[in-house]
C-alpha cells in the first residue's frame, strides 16, 4: 500500500505538472522493452567458456541493421558512432560475419538476430563438424586412424559458432511487432542518407545478459564453494537431468548391480538437442525422430511380449544430455560399472541405438557398427546376427536397411560410451551412410517444418493432433522394424513378428506433441495434474538444462513410456502415489513404478477420471560423473556447466547527442552559479532592498 500510494503521488504530480493529458510515466516515454528475447548464454567446460555475455549494466549500442556482408565495414571501421548494436537477418548470421564482429568487439556492443518464420534453403549448423569429438570411443588410444573424425566428417556443414566465445550479448528476436519497431526506429533515426553520417538523436538498444561464471568449470565450481555469506552465491551449475529407462520384464531397481541369469538388450535413443540460443532446441531430426521411433516400438512390443515373452529382457533407455559430451550414457555406464544401476555391464547382451531416422532418402536406413570391436570374432558374430535380424525385420516393410562400409567408425552415438567400457556388440540405426543428411544439425531450424510435418491450414489443434502425416507413417514403418528386430534380438519367436506393428496414430500424436505443441488433449491425459504447467503451446525445448531443474522432455517421455509400455491397474490414488498395490504391499515398489495420471474426462463431464499406471519406467541420474568425482578437468567425462545470470532483457530507446548533454550541463552550472551570486548579493543587501522608508517598524528583513 505504501509503495502504491507513493507511486500514485508521484504519478499524479508528474501527470499534473508536466506531461499533461497523455498520462504516461517517463520511463514509457523513453524505452520500448522487447517482449521476446532469447539470449545466448555462457557454458563452460574443463578448458573453455563458450557463449555470450554483456556488462553488468547491459551493453548499449547504436542500432545498425546489417543489409549485406559488405555493409559490415560500416560497423567495423567507417561508422561514426560506435559501439554499434548490429541487427542481423538470419541469412547473415554466418561464421565469417560473426568472426569479423568478434574481432572488432570494441566497436560492437551486441548482436540481435532476427529469426525467420521459414527455414532457409541452404544447410546451417552452428555445431562443430565432429560432434563430441573427444569424449566418444574414437580416441588416439582406441584407434588413431579413426580419431577426430579422420574417416568421416559427420557434420560437414557445422560452423562451430555454438562453440565460440563472444564478449558481447547475442539475442534472437522473433520476426514480429518488436522487430518492426526496431526497424522503424532504425529507418527514422539511424539510416545514413547518401553516405553522410546520421543526425542525433540516434536509435540505440541495450541488451542485458550478464553471466556470473567465467574461465572454466574448475574455476566456477571452486567459486561455488566459497561461502562468504549465509546464502552462498552460486555462479554455475552442471548440465544434466535424468535418463528414462524401462524394461520389458520387471527388474529389481532397489538391489543394484549384477543380476543373475539376466541378459538385456539395450534399445537406446537420445533425448536432447541444442542450438546457438538458449532454450531454442527443437531437435526434430537429431532427437525427436529417434526417440519417438523407440517409444512407438516399445508400444508395439507391449502386447506380443505379454503373449510370448522372449528369453532376454529389452531395456529401453532414453539418454539426456548426449549433446554435451554424452552426459546421460556416460553416467549410466559409470553406474553400471560401479553397481549403482539395476543391471551391470555383464548383463548387457547387445545395444541397438536409434539415431536420426527422420529423413530417409529412398526409404533407406543405414546400420552403423564399430569396426574396431568387430575385429573380435565373437563380437563380430553377434553384430552380424543383429544386422541379420534387422534385415529380416524389415521384410515386408517399406524400409530397406543397409550396412555401411566396414571401415567406417560409428557416428556420434550413446553406444560409443558402452564401447568405451568394453566391446559390446551393437548397431546404430541412422538415415545417413556417411555424413549427416540433417542439414540443420543442432540448429533452430531442425524443427517440424524440416521434418515436413505440416497440416492443412484450417484444422483446429485437436484435428491436427490426429491428422496423420507422411513423416508419421514413415516413422511408424521404422518403429515396426525396430520393434521386430528387438523381439528377434531378445530371442523371441519369428512367428510372432506379424503381430508386432507400431501404431501410426501414436506416432502422429507424439510428433505433434513434441514438435508442434505439447499442450494437447492426449498429453494432458497421460500426465499427472501437477505437471500440467509444463505443457506449452509451442514446440518442446530439448535443451538439457541444469541438473537442478527437471527438463520438460524427460518428464513427458517418462509418462509417455509408462503409458505406452505399462498397464492401467485398479489401485486407489493413495496406494498408487505410495508405490504399492494395497496397504500391506511393500515389495512391488522394487519391481514396478506406479504413476497416477489424470486421464480423460468422459463426454458431458469436465472432471477427469484419473487412473494408476503400473510400469517399469524409472529415472536414473544423468549428471556427469565428473561432478560426483569432483574432477572438473576430466578428459573422460562431460564437464559442461551453465553459468548463472540475474536478468535477461533488452530495450530500445534514443540516445541524445553529446552536444545536447553538455549544453544541459552547462546551462545547469550557469543557473546554479548565477543564482548563488544573486542570492548572496540580495541577502547581504536585504536590509536596503526590503526596508520601506514609510513603515520602518514592520520592515524587519
Amino acid at each position: 500500500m505504501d509503495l502504491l500510494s507513493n507511486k500514485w503521488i508521484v504519478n499524479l504530480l508528474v501527470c499534473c505538472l508536466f506531461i499533461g493529458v497523455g498520462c504516461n510515466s517517463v520511463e514509457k516515454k523513453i524505452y520500448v522493452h522487447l517482449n521476446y528475447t532469447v539470449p545466448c548464454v555462457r557454458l563452460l567446460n574443463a578448458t573453455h567458456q563458450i557463449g555470450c555475455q554483456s556488462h553488468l549494466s547491459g551493453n548499449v549500442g547504436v542500432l545498425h541493421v546489417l543489409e549485406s556482408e559488405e555493409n559490415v565495414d560500416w560497423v567495423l571501421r567507417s561508422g561514426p558512432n560506435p559501439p554499434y548494436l548490429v541487427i542481423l537477418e538470419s541469412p547473415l548470421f554466418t561464421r565469417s560475419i560473426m568472426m569479423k564482429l568478434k574481432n572488432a568487439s570494441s566497436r560492437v556492443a551486441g548482436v540481435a538476430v532476427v529469426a525467420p518464420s521459414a527455414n532457409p534453403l541452404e544447410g546451417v549448423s552452428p555445431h562443430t563438424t565432429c560432434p563430441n569429438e573427444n569424449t566418444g570411443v574414437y580416441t588416439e588410444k582406441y584407434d588413431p586412424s579413426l580419431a577426430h573424425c579422420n574417416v568421416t566428417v559427420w557434420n560437414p556443414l557445422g560452423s562451430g559458432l555454438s562453440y565460440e566465445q563472444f564478449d558481447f550479448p547475442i539475442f534472437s528476436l522473433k520476426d514480429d511487432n518488436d522487430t518492426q519497431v526496431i526497424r522503424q526506429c532504425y529507418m527514422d533515426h539511424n539510416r545514413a542518407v547518401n553516405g553522410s553520417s546520421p543526425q542525433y538523436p540516434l536509435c540505440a538498444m541495450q541488451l542485458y545478459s550478464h553471466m556470473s561464471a567465467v574461465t572454466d568449470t574448475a574455476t566456477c565450481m571452486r567459486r561455488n564453494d566459497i561461502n562468504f555469506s549465509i546464502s552462498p552465491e552460486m555462479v554455475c551449475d552442471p548440465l544434466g537431468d535424468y535418463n528414462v529407462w524401462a524394461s520389458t520384464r520387471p527388474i529389481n531397481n532397489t538391489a543394484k548391480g549384477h543380476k543373475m541369469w539376466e541378459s538385456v538388450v539395450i534399445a537406446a535413443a537420445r533425448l536432447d538437442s541444442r542450438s546457438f540460443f538458449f532454450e531454442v532446441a527443437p531437435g526434430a531430426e537429431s532427437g525427436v525422430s529417434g526417440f519417438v521411433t523407440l517409444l512407438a516400438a516399445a508400444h508395439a512390443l507391449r502386447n506380443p511380449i505379454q503373449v510370448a515373452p522372449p528369453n532376454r529382457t529389452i531395456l529401453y533407455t532414453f539418454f539426456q544430455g548426449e549433446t554435451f559430451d554424452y552426459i546421460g550414457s556416460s553416467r549410466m555406464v559409470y553406474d553400471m560399472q560401479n553397481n549403482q544401476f539395476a543391471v551391470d555391464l555383464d548383463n548387457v547382451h547387445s545395444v541397438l541405438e536409434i539415431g536420426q531416422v527422420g529423413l530417409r532418402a529412398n526409404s533407406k536406413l543405414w546400420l552403423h557398427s564399430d569396426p574396431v570391436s568387430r575385429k573380435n570374432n565373437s563380437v563380430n558374430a553377434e553384430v552380424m546376427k543383429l544386422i541379420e535380424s534387422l534385415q529380416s525385420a524389415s521384410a515386408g516393410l517399406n524400409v530397406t536397411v543397409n550396412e555401411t562400409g566396414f571401415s567406417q567408425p560409428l557416428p556420434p552415438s550413446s553406444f560409443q560410451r558402452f564401447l568405451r567400457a568394453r566391446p559390446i556388440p551393437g548397431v546404430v540405426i541412422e538415415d545417413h551412410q556417411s555424413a549427416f543428411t540433417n542439414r540443420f544439425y543442432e540448429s533452430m531450424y531442425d524443427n517440424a517444418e524440416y521434418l515436413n510435418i505440416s497440416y492443412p491450414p484450417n484444422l483446429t489443434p485437436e484435428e491436427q493432433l490426429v491428422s496423420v502425416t507422411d513423416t508419421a507413417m514413415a516413422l511408424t514403418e521404422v518403429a515396426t522394424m525396430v520393434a521386430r528386430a528387438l523381439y528377434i534380438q531378445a530371442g523371441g519367436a519369428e512367428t510372432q513378428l506379424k503381430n508386432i506393428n507400431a501404431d501410426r496414430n501414436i506416432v502422429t500424436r507424439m510428433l505433434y506433441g513434441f514438435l508442434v505443441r505439447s499442450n494437447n488433449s492426449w498429453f494432458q491425459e497421460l500426465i499427472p495434474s501437477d505437471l500440467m504447467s509444463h505443457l506449452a503451446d509451442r514446440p518442446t525445448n530439448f535443451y538439457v538444462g541444469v541438473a537442478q531443474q527437471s527438463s520438460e522432455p524427460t518428464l513427458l517421455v517418462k509418462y509417455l513410456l509408462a503409458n505406452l509400455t505399462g498397464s492401467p491397474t485398479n489401485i486407489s490414488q493413495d496406494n498408487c502415489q505410495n508405490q504399492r498395490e494395497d496397504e500391506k504391499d511393500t515389495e512391488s515398489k522394487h519391481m514396478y513404478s506406479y504413476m497416477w495420471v489424470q486421464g480423460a474426462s468422459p463426454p458431458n463431464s469436465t472432471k477427469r477420471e484419473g487412473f494408476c499406471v503400473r510400469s517399469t519406467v524409472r529415472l536414473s541420474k544423468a549428471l556427469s560423473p565428473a561432478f560426483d568425482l569432483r574432477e572438473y578437468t576430466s578428459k573422460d567425462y562431460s564437464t559442461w556447466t551453465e553459468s548463472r545470470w540475474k536478468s535477461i532483457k533488452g530495450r530500445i530507446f534514443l540516445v541524445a547527442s553529446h552536444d545536447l548533454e553538455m549544453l544541459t550541463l552547462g546551462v545547469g552550472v550557469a543557473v546554479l552559479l548565477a543564482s548563488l551570486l544573486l542570492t548572496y548579493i540580495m541577502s547581504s543587501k536585504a536590509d536596503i532592498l526590503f526596508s520601506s522608508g514609510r513603515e520602518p517598524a514592520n520592515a524587519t528583513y
Partner: protein
Amino acid sequence: MTAAVFFGCTFIAFGPAISLFLFTIARDPLRVIFLIAGAFFWLVSLLLASLVWFISVQISNKDSATQQKGLLIFGVVLSVLLQETFRFAYYKLLKKANEGLLTLSQEETMPISIRQLAYVSGLGFGFMSGAFSVVNILADSVGPGTVGIHGDSQHYFLSSAFMTLAIILLHMFWGVVFFDACEKQRWWAVAAVVISHLTVSCLTFQNPEYVGSLVPTYVILFLMGVWAFYSAGGSLRNLKLCITCKDRDFLLANHRPR
C-alpha cells in the same frame, strides 16, 4: 555520459532554491524548522489530493479517454485548491505559533517576522512540490536513453527542469503575496494568487508544446516576483539605491538597532 543531463537538470531545477536555502535559511534554526513544516503542509495537501484522485480513478471508466482527461483536469484543480487551502491553514497556524512564541520569548519583539515566515514557508512549499514533480524525471534522465522514441521532443528533460525552477520560485512568491494579503485582509490578492496558481498548473496541459507552457509561466513568474518584491517591502527606490551602491549613506540615515 548522461550523468551530465542528470546534473544539468538538477542544477537548473534546484540551483536557485539551494542557494536561497544556503544564504538565507540554513543559518537560522527557526527558519529551517518553519521551512520543513511548510514542506510538510504541502505534502499533506498532496496526500489528500492523491487520495481523492486514487478513489476517483478507481470508480471511473478507465477506457473512456474523455473521462480520464476530465478527471485529470479535475485532479489538477483540486490539487491546486487544496494546496492553497493548506497555505492558508499554515498561515493561521503560524499566527497562533507566533503569538505563542511571543508570550514565551524573553524579548518584546517576535523572533521571526510574519514576512520572513511567508518567505520561508513559500520556499518550503516550493522545495517539496519541485522535488515531487521532478525527482522521477531526474531518475530516468540518468539514461542511457533520452525521450523521443515515440516522437516526443528531446528537450523534455531541459524543459521539465526549467518548469520546476519556475514552480519553486512561484511558490515562494505566492507565499509572500498570500501571507501579506492575509495580514492586510486583501482577499482579492489571495484570489489572485489562487488564480495564478491555477493558470500555471493548467498551462502544463499545453505540453508537449513546451514553448506554449514555459513562456506564459515565466511571464507570470516575473509578475509575481515583482508583486512579491513590493509586498515584502521592496520598492524601485530601494532597488535603485541598491544598484547604485548608495546604501552606505542610506544605512547611516536609517540606522537603528535590531
